[in-house]
């Protein structure tokens, strides 16, 4: 949740569609506008709330315009639902128990000069009856190339607000699938939240050899899974492995529960 490109919800990309882009601000006159890599960042990208129904929470989200162009952001809040294991973003008020419909954003629009940061306050009320566990705060910007102030830019960057109410998460992990990638081994596993509450799964993939020695250890970043959500996690041994039999061990922990899965495969021809 440090400042940086909020890759979590970067649903749009920064696209320069004109070859005639020129800085809107003279970098010499405005040293702060000397930016080497155009970027737009948001902080925090994830907000976790331990919430109770009928309460409200005020959080501030800041956005920084790291591009050499003036950007106008409109703040849009959408509910995050899960359908078929995947996240869906639904406009506020279009889902029963919509949390996005309760959100008060102030201000709802921002105009940021190059290098400038802005901040909006987001007030979220938790409805008494809702199955929704996350909302997305989108900062949407689209510049007009006719303004002749810079190239046309369309971006959509967002912060995810997750809620933990009183339900229970239930982590389920599928079997570890191993695949031979030349002299490397890749691991794939499916995680599903079968419960009614958001869960954050922390996991590792370990690859051990015949003698039990550790060849590869991958600490996966914490994975947020909304109720019903499914995700595939993948990893690959970073270096070439000698032929032999390998055992893959995956461990995922959520709250106090630990799920361990194992699989093995022969890499190359057996001796």
């Amino acid at each position, binding site marked *: 949740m440090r400042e940086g490109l909020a890759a979590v919800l970067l649903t749009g990309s920064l696209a320069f569609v004109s070859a005639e882009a020129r800085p809107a601000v003279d970098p010499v006159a405005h040293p702060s506008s000397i930016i080497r890599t155009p970027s737009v960042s948001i902080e925090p990208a994830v907000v976790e709330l331990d919430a109770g129904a009928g309460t409200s929470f005020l959080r501030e989200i800041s956005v920084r315009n790291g591009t050499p162009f003036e950007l106008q952001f409109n703040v849009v809040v959408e509910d995050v639902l899960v359908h078929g294991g995947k996240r869906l973003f639904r406009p506020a*008020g279009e889902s029963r128990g*919509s949390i996005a419909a309760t959100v008060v954003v102030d201000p709802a629009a921002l105009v940021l000069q190059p290098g400038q940061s802005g901040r909006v306050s987001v007030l979220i009320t938790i409805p*008494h009856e809702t199955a929704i566990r996350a909302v997305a705060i989108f900062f949407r910007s689209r510049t007009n*190339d006719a303004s002749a102030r810079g190239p046309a830019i369309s971006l959509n960057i967002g912060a995810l607000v997750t809620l933990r109410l009183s339900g229970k998460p239930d982590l389920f992990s599928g079997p570890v699938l191993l695949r031979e990638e030349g002299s490397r081994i890749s691991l794939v596993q499916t995680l599903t939240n079968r419960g009614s509450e958001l869960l954050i799964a*922390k996991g590792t993939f370990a690859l051990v050899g015949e*003698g039990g020695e550790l060849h590869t250890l991958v600490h996966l970043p914490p994975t947020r899974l909304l109720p019903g959500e499914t995700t595939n996690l993948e990893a690959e041994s970073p270096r070439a492995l000698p032929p032999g039999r390998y055992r893959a061990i995956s461990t995922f*922990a959520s709250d106090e529960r630990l799920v361990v899965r194992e699989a093995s495969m022969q890499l190359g021809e057996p001796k």
Partner: protein
Amino acid sequence: MTRRIALLLALALALLEAATAHADIRIKAGKSASIDVPNATAAYSLDPDVAGVSFARPEITIVAYREGVARVAIITPAGLETLDVVVTPRESLSLLSTRSRSALNLESRYDSWSERFDQRVSFSTSRDGRQTRAEIRHSAVSNAGSTDQYIPWATWRFQTPSYTLTLLDAWVSESVLTMDRRLVRGVHLDAAGFRAHAGYSFYSLLGQTFLPKDERERVIGLSYDARLTDRSTVTPHLYRFDGEAGAADRSGTIGSLEYKYDRGSELTLAAEAAVSRLDETGELETGFALRSDYRTDRDQARLDFRYRPAELAGLRREVSGSFGDASWRHVILHSLDATANVTFQDFSISGYEQTSTSSGLTFAYRPNSRWGFGSGGRYALLQPGSGPEIEQFEIPFTISYRRPSAGGAAEYRYIENSHSNEGGHLVRFSGYGRMAGARATLWAERETNAPTLAVIFREQPGLALLLAELGIIVASPFELSRVLRENPALAELGFIEGVTFNLSPVSYRAGGTLAWMERGASSFRLTTNYRRDEGISRTREAGVAFVSFSHHLGASLDLETGYSRSFTRSGADDWSSAGGWHLGIRKRFDDSGGNGLSLFRRRGEISGYVFLDEESTGRFQPGMTVLPGIEVVLDDEQRVRTDARGFFEFRRVPEGVHKVQAIYLSDKPFKFTTPSPAQTEIGETVNFGIASIAGRLFGVIESDQKIAIDGVTVSIDGAGVSKNVVVRGGRYSIDVPRPGAYLVSVERASVPSGYSLLGIEPKEVTIADGQPSEANFVIPAIRSIGGTVERGGAGSTRTALSGAVVRLEEDGRSMTTDAEGRYLFRDVAPGRYTVVAEHGAMANRRSIAVPKGPAAMRSIDLLVDEGLLTAASRPAKGRRRADSVAPSRREIVRQVAADDAPGSGSMPAKKTRAESGDLFAVQLGVYRQETNALRAVETAARESLTASIDRQRSLHRVVTAPFASRAEADAAAKRLRRAGLETTVIAAPASLIASAPAVSQTSRTDEVIAAKQDIAPSLQAPNGGSVASNSETTSAGIIVSPAVTAEKPAPSRIAPEKEPVRSESPATPAASHAMQKAPTASAQKSEAAPAVAQRNDFPAASHAAPTRARRPEPIRMLQSGSHRNVSSAAATVKIAESQGLQAVIRNSGTFFEVLIGPFASDQAVGVAQRELEKRGIRTLFVIESSSPFAERVATVAGLVRP
């Protein structure tokens, strides 16, 4: 028997424990710990941010980073095991919760056994990074009728980021040779690397606290840390001790220099050398100490050596002498390691001297993480200052089984002690288990000894005397045993039974702990120990049991109580037992709530309003609607309700930060517009804004092929609310402030051309408070396939072929061409089709692709001849082959454009946005005034670009499109910007690419023509003649694409006689008029400016012929469909007229169509449509525009009234 029962019981308990349990490791943050798992092959942390793990077989080292619980995964050949590591927070100065700025603890405890009453008072406070802690303890102990009073501990500590000052009691640990964990009452200062201590240390301690007596020693000293490198430090120490004169007096001065080196977990080293001078002797004496710890993957070595002669100045309680301890552990094989250790002690204490040396070598074999086996040997030599030497030799054997939840161990030990026995055996079992909050440990052991003669005679002095009197000499206990059994004199004296069995004394020991803890609430603990010693002459038993229970009585009050009882028995009659209880109470006060500590603090009020904030401003202003009766809670404890003014107030609230929360309960969805709970302080106002949440109506507008349709207007009406919204991206969403029943309808006039208006009926929806409702509309696209079947061959004249059978192979439908050789299939689904024309033995076929969007493919002409019996197609000039495989997206557009050339009479496929793919358009602005839009069109024309006007309600969007690539669009935009227009490159909207279908194509014709004629002069001089050569008509205007220049329709395409029957319908005037009335005009103008000439062929243009665009007025009509005979149509007219509606019949050649209208509004159309439907007449909503109804009717050929 008793022994067996005890042994069995111990074994059963050990096995029972082994069934459960989990052994946690607890480490403070910043510390590390190591465990051995012999068969582990790898280990890693599952929570690396809490604790890290390094593995060097078989040792696992865990380094704790921050507070939390980390799981450690241990990989063994058997699988993966986990170990929980609880990382506790670093030691904090605060006695109590860090959240509290101030805290006071009171604790009282009484122990009936020792008749001791303890009281403890501690206080801590922190503010602005400064912490203060004070504590005092008082003990009162009854002693022979009197009560002794003590203050065993009193301290006051003040800490800032730069220094720490402690008054009275503190533990001092500076170095091994100077002050090594000694309690000093005085002044202590720690600042800038200096540590100074001055005060008294007492001889007597009670537990770890002082028992103040007169015997005390003065201490004053100073230490300073000088850092040499990042890893090494030098610390000089200088201390002065002054004690009472006496035998153990060691008053004097000592100075030492200590060097410390730290290379992480691999090597630590501390060496100290001291010089001292005793006051009593005045001589200098030296001492030194060395400690080292070295670890690698395979080796661990530890060394601790101290030389501290009795002449070294120090406190009287310091132990003098030499001490050495060295151990080395080496991993020999994968799961086998050896450990050797040597210990030497030579203590010199006043009145007591003893030297001891011990050495040992043990081997441990751990085939896996659960099982362990060990053995080895140990030898020890004890040399007391007086008396004989004692030697001891041991050979142990151990086996252990360990799991995180349960485990156990068994041990056998052979012991020889030259002082007490000539061989003994010890067997010990132990086990542990844990489940949920309960934990149990049990152990039991049995030890047998073969005592030496010295021990026997010491126990039985009468026996030694008797043997001497009898002249019997025995050399060993075994010989003594034989003598006792065989000598009748001794048997008569009763020694046989008394001694023979007791030559091997037996000891039993057992113990256990059962603990249960409920997190944060209660805990229970039971501990027992039992011992039975069967000596040579008597048996002794002793046992103790202790039970304790603690419970939290509320958030700040703890209670602890317990009872203990012990017994001893020596012989049958020597029984004694004693018991006692204790009770302790601890009360905590802090400034977080309304307990006692807050009595001394400043107080104030917290107040505010709860109000209705429908605008979500979050600010309360007078005049706003307030909400009475709302419960407001302070710190989860105090509750009030708002009064009639919506006002609440908490009085006499102690200063500090408080939590205030409004509890709003409602069946209707709502939202806070201010935080609730809110953090506030006394004197501040907290207002709570509450707003209701509107219901939401939303839906999608899409075609029968799930293609989003844009630009449609959706309106809702009901419950006093009337709203409409324009669909964007195929979706619409409307806030509905009031619940109720609503009529949701699609405004028919807004439906793009090419789509059927059938079935777009208004929908009734009920919208609840704050709840979403969905109303979707599916608008089917109109698709048809038509053309002409001709007969002819090479060199012969082509003639229309009447009576030919035309089949759609995939569809199964067939029809016969009319007198002009025309055919038409309506309601065609998207997909690939093969059109087959047959006439006698002649046949031909064409393969075509019908797109998903609207499409009127009216130029699917087929030529049949005797020579054409197989599939063939007629190559049309300027037109792509229609029998090719499924066209690409762009090909479809091009073909559509070609087919839809003015006068061609064909209806092009509607190009949707999804299908447009990589097509681009340039938007030239959106204007309120039509004249401005026309000006933009003219400007574009000057740049050799043709633009269209997309009329959307009161706005006019000017767009030029399509462009085949982004680069082309950018180039055009650049040119137009130079010309002074504001441009935006956009994806070509479907509405700008699609063509008008039959039904509503007419509706926009006049507008299009008007705009076109305005710019006609410019278009007649295109740049290079390659621009503006083809066009298509849409509801949004005209699109001119240079990309389709080569695909102009052939002149023959506009010949009216070749158009199908359907083309005569007034619903397709653009096509039909072109066919019927324009050939001459077309021929005349096509030579100079093909595109304009063709467009001018439209008859509508001839009677409109405006110089300025005229805003069309939509005329709403209903079309009843096609009737085979005029009588059927006349019946429909009668029914319509019976409803007060105007109706006319139009003869389209093959069919008779009934037109009903006009209507003033969509609502009127809807009403009429429903009424007619009730009477069995299904109608189609038709939009006419640009001319009054009568004028339009007059232009329709074949119009008759019944």
